[in-house]
């Protein structure tokens, strides 16, 4: 009867699905002192005047090898929330799928939306259960969760460490191997730029997002950035009171050629 509380994980458990089994595939894989976060990519979220923008690079790597250049790492969980993933794709996509179904199941069974707080808890729980795999390095995920909090009427950004600790970002959050470049730029811009990033309008913010991604790709081999020749642009999603909306590639394309590529 646990299902009657709208807990999809419990329903899965009752059907024999090993929810907690994101375990390392080899026995005795004890964590060494040094666990390398194999989160080769760049994802970030920034607050701007009209809400939140979440962006994800599209490259997926395995060591030195570029596996795929068209990955979508900014996943819509429901109409009002987005998960941007960095880390081991298998585990990250599975988590996103579980969350998406959990939110749907809760809404349909309880006839009300899961609260924003409840959604955050659901993600924390998955990450906590995933801790053994995260420490072994086979299931490391460090995601960013962004969504619109209808109770408070504003967009919010949260980021997590690989063990499930949750932090609310005041202005922005970054994750993945390209994140240090972006953090530096964001810090500089907010401190000495022409006003805080949070005050930018949509066009300025989108331009800024494309420049940030291009900068990350410059210094991080695991980040693809923009490949205009191949028509490859980052996935960018906007979160506002109306919900989640994907920014069309055409918009990014024109901004990129006007304000990023041939600027100055």
């Amino acid at each position, binding site marked *: 009867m646990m299902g009657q509380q709208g807990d999809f994980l419990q329903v899965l458990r009752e059907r024999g699905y090993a929810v907690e089994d994101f375990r390392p595939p080899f026995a005795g894989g004890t964590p060494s002192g040094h666990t390398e976060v194999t989160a080769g990519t760049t994802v970030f979220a920034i607050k701007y005047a009209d809400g939140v923008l979440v962006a994800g690079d599209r490259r997926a790597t395995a060591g030195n090898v570029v596996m795929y250049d068209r990955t979508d790492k900014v996943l819509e969980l429901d109409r009002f929330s987005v998960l941007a993933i960095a880390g081991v794709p298998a585990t990250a996509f599975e988590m996103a799928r579980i969350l998406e179904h959990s939110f749907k199941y809760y809404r349909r069974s309880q*006839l009300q939306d899961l609260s924003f707080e409840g959604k955050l808890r659901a993600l924390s729980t998955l990450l906590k259960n995933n801790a053994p795999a995260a420490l072994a390095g086979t299931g490391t995920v460090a995601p960013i969760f962004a969504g619109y909090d209808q109770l408070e009427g504003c967009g919010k950004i949260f980021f997590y460490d690989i063990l499930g600790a949750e932090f609310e970002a005041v202005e922005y959050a970054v994750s993945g191997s390209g994140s240090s470049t972006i953090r530096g730029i964001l810090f500089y811009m907010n401190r000495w730029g022409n006003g805080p990033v949070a005050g930018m309008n949509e066009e300025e913010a989108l331009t800024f997002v494309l420049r940030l991604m291009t900068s990350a790709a410059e210094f991080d081999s695991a980040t693809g950035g923009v490949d205009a020749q191949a028509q490859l642009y980052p996935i960018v999603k906007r979160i506002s009171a109306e919900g989640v909306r994907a920014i069309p590639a055409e918009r990014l394309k024109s901004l990129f050629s006007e304000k990023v590529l041939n600027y100055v």
Partner: protein
Amino acid sequence: MYEEPYRWIEAVANRRQYLDDQFTQGNPLVAVSFTQGILLLSFNRGTDKIYEIYDRIALGGMGHPADLEKLRYALLDMAHVEGFQRSPTDVTASRLMKNGLAPVIKEAFEEIFKAPYIAKILLAEVGVSQERDRLFSINYDGMFEEQREFGLLAASTLIRGLLTQEWKSHSPLSSLPSAVEVSLRLWGIASLLQMATPSPDAEEAGTTSPPATSLSTLPDDEAIASRIRETLSKETLECVLLDRESGKMETYRTLSHSELQPFIPSVFQPAI
């Protein structure tokens, strides 16, 4: 005492009578397929009767709210586990009905020492094109039917034929306003015919008073309009659209009162 086959048949027959009786006061439910999707329509006196089951599937119910709730949960569990472990496109109303609902309801009905489900359920699945719309309705005994265009839940299954004829005279429908209008009309006819059906008890006692509406002919337009006016002023109109053109994975949308208001013809509007 039910070990003998005859006793068992008798017990099942009693059960039918008891169950038929339970539905006589219930509100019928109508579902129609049209260009934009599937419209489900009914009235309620406080408890909702139409629910979302999955991305493209809605449930309409008639009967005891507690039983409906139990069956709704069973369907939700089945649909979401399937959608998660396989893919959302693998969740179909056909399989939910045939593998999920029908065996459970039939078993409960024939288990004569336990209470049966007092429930009739309609599952509507909107397809990518209108030819792929499906409507399934199941009776309290586990008997189910599949329809393409027009689905109905009502106390008596006898009225189905007349309503199907009426539906054919209106189909195909090409807009939401016409779907709302026709569904309302069909609902009014179903409601009148249902009231005209002699209750099993009355039949037995031989005290059947001549009903206002005969079961073999359609009620006239004025009777239908007056029935709808009366219900609109007393009960809550419940209307859900499975929107084929939503452009998203999820298609279920409850139509609000203000959205419906312009689609209700003035002859159906209660005088204020």
